[in-house]
């Protein structure tokens, strides 16, 4: 953090838009969809004031491709949407991965499948971290859980996108987008990528022509490119995994949750601790790269895990894959449509704790 600004009371969606502009994003392409419309509306109002440009596309298919055309020039660009629109963008995500272009996409997810509903869900976890488009690729996926973190991680998203030449997805939900809370905006030191990057499409003035392509037909070239992408993903896992941990040192059971559910879980875990239950919390902030190494370490000592999600069981699969085989993993899921209360989660903690810890 370099330059903190005056504290503001604002919606999560506006925090994202504000962060993007303060991070140097000057181009936004998007299509309206609830529950994220405050992002394009903020961009439409504010970008012209800073010499930027907002363009409303005819579809999310068009917006992700406009993003691609702009990203190839090296500027910071962003789009945002929600479930149905993010589904339409999956083709573009795959091309971003193949083309190795940096950009930021925000998914303020809403319930599905289909047109679904406009309330919060975590049903897009698999789509986000497993690659919803074709091919063997990953996105960087960040999962904020407060208004301040929406702001901070949006800035981080631009930095990571540039560092790895990858699309970075900020995965929020309807709750995070709509809640109004105080945040402290700040301006990062770096508000753009290096203009000397050797792949930027800027016109072949005084240099050899460049190409942005994901087509590899020559013998062996496609495999080589795929190994190159995998090497980047391995680097991400070494250098840029982010998570938050609370009271795991002496924990007999560790609660694992991300995003809105993690925020609710914090209250439930605090209550459980106050009542003498040795419960800790691990909150993945990067969903890809997933903090699987840290989970494996914790699972060396603590053998009981409880995962809660607003879906019927998605991240829990990655938790199970990460943990040693002798760990017990319980799951509490609420599919899109309702949000668990702190009391709901406290009850699940208490019941699971009794079953796994006290009764053993």
């Amino acid at each position, binding site marked *: 953090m370099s330059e903190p600004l005056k504290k503001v009371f604002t919606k999560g969606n506006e925090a994202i838009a504000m962060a993007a502009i303060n991070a140097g994003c000057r181009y936004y392409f998007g299509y309206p969809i609830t529950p994220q419309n405050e992002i394009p509306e903020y961009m439409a109002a504010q970008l012209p004031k800073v010499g930027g440009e907002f363009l409303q596309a005819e579809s999310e*298919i*068009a*917006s992700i491709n406009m993003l*691609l055309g702009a990203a190839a*020039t090296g500027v910071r660009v962003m789009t945002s949407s929600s479930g149905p629109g993010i589904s339409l963008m999956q083709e573009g995500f795959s091309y971003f991965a193949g083309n190795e272009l940096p950009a930021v996409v925000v998914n303020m997810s809403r319930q599905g499948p289909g047109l679904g509903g406009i309330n919060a869900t975590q049903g897009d976890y698999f789509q986000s971290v497993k690659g919803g488009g074709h091919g063997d690729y990953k996105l960087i996926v960040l999962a904020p859980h407060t208004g301040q973190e929406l702001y901070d991680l949006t800035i981080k998203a631009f930095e990571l996108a540039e560092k790895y030449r990858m699309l970075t997805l900020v995965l929020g939900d309807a709750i995070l987008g709509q809640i109004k809370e105080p945040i402290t905006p700040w301006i990062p030191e770096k508000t753009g990528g290096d203009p000397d990057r050797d792949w930027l499409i*800027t016109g072949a003035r005084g240099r050899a*022509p460049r190409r942005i*392509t994901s087509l590899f037909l020559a013998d062996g070239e496609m495999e080589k490119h795929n190994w190159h992408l995998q090497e980047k993903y391995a680097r991400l896992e070494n250098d840029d995994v982010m998570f938050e941990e609370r009271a795991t040192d002496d924990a007999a059971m560790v609660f694992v949750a991300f995003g809105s559910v993690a925020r609710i879980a914090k209250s439930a875990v605090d209550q459980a601790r106050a009542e003498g239950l040795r419960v800790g919390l691990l909150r993945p902030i990067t969903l890809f790269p997933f903090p699987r190494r840290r989970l494996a370490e914790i699972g060396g000592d603590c053998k009981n895990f409880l995962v809660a999600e607003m879906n019927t069981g998605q991240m829990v699969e990655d938790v199970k894959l990460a943990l040693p085989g002798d760990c017990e993993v319980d799951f509490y899921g609420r599919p899109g449509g309702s949000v668990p209360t702190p009391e709901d989660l406290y009850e699940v903690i208490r019941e699971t704790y009794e079953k796994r810890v006290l009764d053993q």
Partner: protein
Amino acid sequence: MKQVFKRPESMADKPFHFCPGCHHGIVHRLVAEALDYFQLREKTIGIASVGCSVFLYDYFAVDVIEAPHGRAAAVATGTKRVLRDHIVFTYQGDGDLAAIGTAEVIHAANRGDNITVIFVNNSIYGMTGGQMAPTTLLGQRSTTSPYGRDNQRDGYPIKMTEMLAALEGPSLVSRVAVNTPGNVKKARKVIRKAFQMQIEGKGFSFVEVLSSCPTNWGMTPVEANQRIADEMIPYYPLGTLKERELVDSF
């Protein structure tokens, strides 16, 4: 000895992979000649599409972005909004532009995005091996219309030039052919004009080029050129349907 003919500077020194008699080579050259004419090579971004023309980046000595199938106009919009003083063109076939990319090209045209679209219409999917395109003529056989295109089942060949000319956004909408030397000369002028529209900031310029695909039509190159005259031009008439005034004459 005086050199009277040479490869345009905007073209790379590389032999085309196109089939004998295919018109892509001619259309590539006409585009490169236009870029040379206005000395645009160093400030031009080409947007390649999916189809036989995907290898644009092998043949043009300009920066190129390869777009997903049908999305070239949207990619071009994104690039041009950032690089406003550069020249951005797409080069798309009829499957790419008139089927999967219809929405993208119509909205880029309607916005009047200041880009140039070269639309090569050979009435068939070339690269995938001769399937029916939205532009395939009634009765024309293809691998997916083996008994001929039937309007009851497949609808009618789509006229993109006429459709786009109905919009307010475009500066130039024209259809040309390159099946005869005379038509090549006319096409050269129109393609040059399309780039001039962009240079002068007049907005979206669009040139449809009727083109041959001898391989997938099952014809010799000479027969294919004749088919354009006998079958394509009567359905897809040549000419400029919309044209804004230019500042500089050439």
